[in-house]
């Protein structure tokens, strides 16, 4: 997880660096991507099964085929 966070931070830092010299089109595109991702994450918040831990624990199937 720590590694993951570092990676995220590095990405953020990269973005900022780019922002200084980047042309406005790239900045706009970056913004749009982030907005899309935010929207997706909110959507997952809305639909993700409540009591996920309990649900996963109780999800037992018979083998098939």
């Amino acid at each position, binding site marked *: *997880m720590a590694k*993951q*966070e570092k990676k*995220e931070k590095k990405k953020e830092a990269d973005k900022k660096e780019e922002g200084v010299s980047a042309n406005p089109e790239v900045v706009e595109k970056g913004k749009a991507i982030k907005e*899309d*991702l935010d*929207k*997706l*994450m909110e*959507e*997952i918040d809305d*639909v*993700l*099964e409540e009591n*996920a*831990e309990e*649900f*996963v*624990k*109780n*999800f*037992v*199937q*018979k*083998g*098939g*085929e």
Partner: protein
Amino acid sequence: MSRIIGTETEFGIVTQGPRLMDAVSSSTLIVNSYPLLPSQSVLWDYENENPLMDARGFEVDGERERPASDYNRLLNKVLANGGRFYVDGAHPEYATPECSNVYDLIAYEKAGERILEQALSRARHSGSEERTLHIYKNNTDHKGNSYGYHENYLVSRGVPFQKIVDQMMPFLVTRQIFCGAGKVGHENRTEAVSYQISQRADFFEALVDLNTMVKRPIINTRDEPHADPKRYRRLHVIVGDSNMSEVTTFLKVGTTSLILAMLEPEGDVAHEASVAYDGIGFQLENPVWAIRAISRDLTLRKHVKLSGGKEWSAIEIQRAYLDQAERFFEASDNPTVHAILHKWRAVLDQLAIDPMKLSREIDWVIKKEMIDSYTARKGWELSDPRVTMLDLQYHDVVQEKGLYYALERGRHVDRITSSDAVAAAEQNPPTDTRAYFRGACLKKFPKEVYAISWSSILFNTAKGIKKVPLMDPLKGGKSSIGTLLERSNTVEELLSMIAA
């Protein structure tokens, strides 16, 4: 390239309600809740089925399935699209109609997801009580229980089975790098891992066998062609994952069709060989070990041993197949063949640079990217049980709840087919295989169709029950039978015109 292909998907199912409902009852409720069946009375005809026949040339002892009529109708539904919707053990299962190409296959497989979704919606309110149902197009409960996704490829009987085994083994072990559905965790007493490429790799314990439920083999020997056995075999591929991504299904079924086609230049099945071909020419030293090792290597850099001592990565093995396929099909004028080759090459190249860049196309990458983004935001550890919920819910067939569908709505994933094509595929059979005759007869004569199997239709006529054999899956399409069907006002007329 005209190759008959079809897939069977078993779905995971959970019911929550005031009364406990076992998986068999839930599955039965589901297949009986789909509202758009052409006929409620048609039987599934088990006459021509024999799953105990082994491709290595012998028959195994065992009980054949022959349910009584009422029970048969309860468990089996034949769809207007020519596919089958049924209860298989403790799971609802959908089999696509026979398709002649990978694009149709994707539309018909996706139509299956819509059929399950509609059945679920109706099952929720049937009877006096409300219940919550969940249906997943995945392959595991993450506790050591797996259910299948089977691909079927019609192959010329002229190809010896051992040649198929030799050609397919390294291919089926390594193709997961672009067709794995991704899985959180490990199971079935295998090596611990937090995320792996394939849902199914943990469950394969043998090389070649007839079993599908225990000691699963990488290559299944069921020799049940559902067609003229003198001309055809049906390769029953049980080692694959159920995919949500259309691009992933395109690659999985497309590439597998191509490398099978290379084996049959002299066969009955249409081909467009430009050069003679003698098989892939190498084998893995330990396929069962390799399938798990590859599933656990998200970098795709590790090497597996070939017989003879060389060590190759899964990407290198796939490139060997691709190189041969490109040479073999060089002169082909079939655009689908070239579209498959092109995508195959592009995806292998990208996998070699950075697999995570394929987060619009390949299921295991799409799912991993989603999980990584979400858990980073929430500060969850990968071992958090809620991460398994993300995995499971990626496969939910209800579009409002399914996380794959959330990605699709947000245009985070690439598609191959369209929602319109999927809607059409739910109600109409393919026009260029015998599924056309099956689906069209069911729609036109729903009361007169008495029973159906993959290779025949039985009609109830004034002179008793009459059987129309359909032993060639490539025959019975709209071009040959469409006008006859249109002109027939009764089943008797249809049968007399067919006989003429």
